[in-house]
């Protein structure tokens, strides 16, 4: 049994804490002492965006290769934006028709986003070109 847990139980036994208070403290302690969820390793993985023209159409090809670590760093940074700045960004994004809530980005959500990105493959075919977005 950890020292903190023993102290909480001791305070409960001598009546300095109520059962409810002790329960809250134990729950809070358990939450803070939990090991962090395993973070998906994004090293060496890249997000690719490729635009290839159809035959006989435009000859322009675009290829973008972005490290997933950069996406992760971007998501991490978005959590650190001060609340007043977040509100301004959210308001202007909402005006542009994109509703986005910064508070919805949590560590767990971020891992889920990265995991989803790793498995994602998007193919868009039009008359002019084909667009591929994938991770490798």
């Amino acid at each position, binding site marked *: 049994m950890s020292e903190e847990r023993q102290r909480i139980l001791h305070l409960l036994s001598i009546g300095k804490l109520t059962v409810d208070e002790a329960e809250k403290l134990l729950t809070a302690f358990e939450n803070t002492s939990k090991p962090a969820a395993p973070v998906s390793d994004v090293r060496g993985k890249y997000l690719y965006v490729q635009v290839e023209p159809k035959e006989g159409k435009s000859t322009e090809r675009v290829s973008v290769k972005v490290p997933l670590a950069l996406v992760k760093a971007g998501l991490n*940074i978005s959590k650190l934006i001060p*609340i*007043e700045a977040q509100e301004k960004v959210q308001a202007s994004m909402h005006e542009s028709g994109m509703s986005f809530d910064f508070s919805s980005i949590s560590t767990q959500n971020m891992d889920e986003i990265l995991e989803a990105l790793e498995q994602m493959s998007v193919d868009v075919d039009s008359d002019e070109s084909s667009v591929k977005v994938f991770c490798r």
Partner: protein
Amino acid sequence: MLPMLLHMKVQKEEKSRTYYFPLGLIYLLFVPVLALGAVAVLILLAIPATSKQTRSYLPLVRQLPTLLSASIGTELAFRSNEKEYEIHIT
């Protein structure tokens, strides 16, 4: 580790040119700007009216090197029959 080299290739018809930008030197150019910025931040932190707001932006500034170092490996390429542009960050 921060990205140290930006490699850019430009090809127009037959002519091909490759440029290497040593980012280490560009960071050195930014040192005076960073020094001035640090002084400005210290002044803002000392003023009670702006201290809280300034402090809220500090974690963001501290994360910028991480963002920069994560950009290592980024590649952008634009190709057509007449021209070709490539940018690599290493």
